[in-house]
């Protein structure tokens, strides 16, 4: 019998903990699924929920304090969409046939929801992690988000 979706997702995420990218990695049961938490970019705690019934992997409240329909909200949706564009090198492109990506803004909290395919769970987790990594390294690196980084992503104001 093969590994369950939860086991595959867990192993895929633990891979990044073993590589030193995620720190303080832990998990808790969560509404029939599992919720992982770990310290990542600039020592910020990230929360990832996996629901095995819907195969959705959610970076919960990835970007806080982003009003719906604000310029930042629109820019974020555009950025995420752009990562599936054919101009992106294939090895970095998010293939929407292999993993679905939606964005939810709930009371100003932007979450990234990835819908995994049953036989492409590892691919889906890897693409989700890489996509969020590009959000942190590229999207948030845009000059207009310096103060946002100070406020929500531990950017030292001495370096801003």
């Amino acid at each position, binding site marked *: 019998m093969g590994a369950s979706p939860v086991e595959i997702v867990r192993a895929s995420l633990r891979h990044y903990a073993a590589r030193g*990218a995620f720190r303080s990695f832990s998990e808790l049961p969560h509404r029939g699924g599992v919720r992982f938490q770990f310290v990542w*970019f600039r020592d910020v705690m990230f929360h990832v929920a996996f629901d095995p019934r819907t195969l959705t992997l959610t970076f919960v409240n990835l970007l806080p304090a982003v009003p719906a329909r604000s310029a930042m909200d629109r820019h974020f949706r555009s950025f995420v969409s752009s990562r599936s564009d054919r101009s992106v*090198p294939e090895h970095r492109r998010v293939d929407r046939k292999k993993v679905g990506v939606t964005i939810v803004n709930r009371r100003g909290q932007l979450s990234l929801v990835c819908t995994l395919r049953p036989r492409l769970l590892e691919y889906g987790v890897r693409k989700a992690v890489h996509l969020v990594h590009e959000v942190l*390294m590229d999207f948030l*690196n845009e*000059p*207009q988000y310096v103060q946002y980084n100070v406020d929500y992503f531990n950017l030292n104001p001495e370096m801003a």
Partner: protein
Amino acid sequence: MTERHDGKKQSAVSRRDFLAKSAALGAGAAAIGAAGAADAAAADAAPNMPSIQRADEFTKSLNEPVVSYDFGDERGLTGAEIFARACKEEGLAGLFCCPGNYTVINAISAQGIPSYGGRIEDIMCAAADGFSRVTGEVAATSGTEGPGFTNMIMSIASAHRANSPVLVRASNMAISNEDRLGGIQQMYQQPTTEGIKKYGKRLTIPNRVHEYAAYAFRQLKSGVPGPVHIDFPSEVSGARFKDASELRDYYDKSRYRSECVAHPAPKDIAKAVEMIGKSERPMIVAGHGVFFHKGWDALKRVAEKNEIAVVESGPVRGHFGDEHRLSANLAADALGSVDLVIFVGQYLMPNVGEYRFNPDVKAIRVHPVAEDLGRNWPLDLGMVADEKAALEALADAVPKRQRAAWVAELAAARKKFEAQNDEYYALGVKYSQQTGTVHPAVTGKLMADFLYNGKIPKEQTTYVQGGWTGAGYTRRWMRAHRPGQFNNAPYQYYPIGPDIGHLLGAGAAMQLGTGPQKAYQGAPVFGFTGDAGAAYSIMEFDTLTKYRIPAIMTVHNNNAWGMITAANTNRSAHMYLFQENLRYDKIAEALGARGEYVTTPEQYTAALQRAYDAAVRDKAATLINVQSSRQFLTNAFPPGAQPRNVEPGVTAYSH
């Protein structure tokens, strides 16, 4: 001599002829004999006032014959002379100091070691650091025992973060006065440099002076470089020794240290070759260890043989160069595609996430000593080896391979970066016109055009990148085409201020033709700093002018500390503001240098030309005061204070 021109005047000097002329100028401070035209020009400017000029004793002093310190006569040698003799034997490449520690600096200078006396100990220490960074050689700094030494602390710390082999010397304090508060300026030095030196020692036993010179140079010339701080009291410096038998451990350098370096284990090379073979998009991060240990030819060989991309890191750039088709220095967007990173000579390791690599990237690190392998960045392979030795072994071992898709991706990323630069420049031009000042994106573009796209050979000019907010733009434009061409002055420790010291050090290296600067000996050096930074070190324009170092510093004058964006209440803003339109150019003039004040891009280009001509013709130093606006830091002028920055590569200033 301050000029505001329309930029249409023609150059009086053929820049193409420059290198041929400068080669005849001779090396070293000792050769800077004749008074230049700057003296006369200064006299013309104020006929009824005493002119700024060099003392006769200054030029005579530089032309005095050098002294050789040898045992054999009744007088013997002092501890200071024995220490200086060891410095000479070790090839100490330069001394940058202020008076104090007299017996030692006198003895070093008397032996013909190129020596520069300046105005502020901290900035002279930065000059030693700057000299060392662009030459890879050991330089010394010195000052008085208490105040002079404590003044150096910022630049010692900066040299430590940059892993520069700077020999820090200070102090003639007497042991006999310890705890008695006899005289002035006393303090214990070694605890003050705790954590900002590679090695330090207070020497108290006179007959061990040569032994501890050996300790110093063993540390300065082996392994991972860093500052070494030796202090000894007057009982040591003033002690006399009739012959070598009175000294403990008096060996030649061939016996007290070794040129031997660690070579990579064959199994590590085999594993690295295997990993490179499996990689589709490998990249070498070539840190300053590649420069200091002269690994640039081997780096090029391994990169070209297997089409491995290279991105430079560290305080100095140019050991691979920006224009090579495999260079990723300008290819920020390609960093995220790397599947294997090979850190070579990366002395300050970033944390995971600080460099733009993706979270799946595999990592190899080559480092001269084992203790640092695995720190901050988990490794798939750690290799203890000298950088050059490892690169040579890899170059021999990797097969020839072409990676067309990877090379194309690098090219596309470079194109995207340059397109973004063009976008910033277009905005900068618009903002400059709107405000009647010069936006730093424009300053960077125009300086780069002058140095790399005009008549000057693009490899010629060694450049010092200082400043803070302005640097966010100019750093994107300035290039490195050969080893030692680019000094990222504030690197990592990021002191605001000693940039003119770094310019002085780079200028001395060019004047002397030290190390990789030899081919460009005598060429002018250029730099960039902010108005905040200039204030710390502007007095060294006296030193630049005194020694006839042709140096040109652009000062980005936005009337404020660059970090004014941190003033988040109106009530606190006053602490970040200077008076408006300050004339740093006039200060330079008052110090005998040239000054230029510009408020438009056209004036800036013309000022660069005049400054260059004066540098070539008269060995004159020039400060170009570029009037800018602090409003450029605000969101009213996007991208504001922080244009997009990615590490590693040309926009990097950490690690």
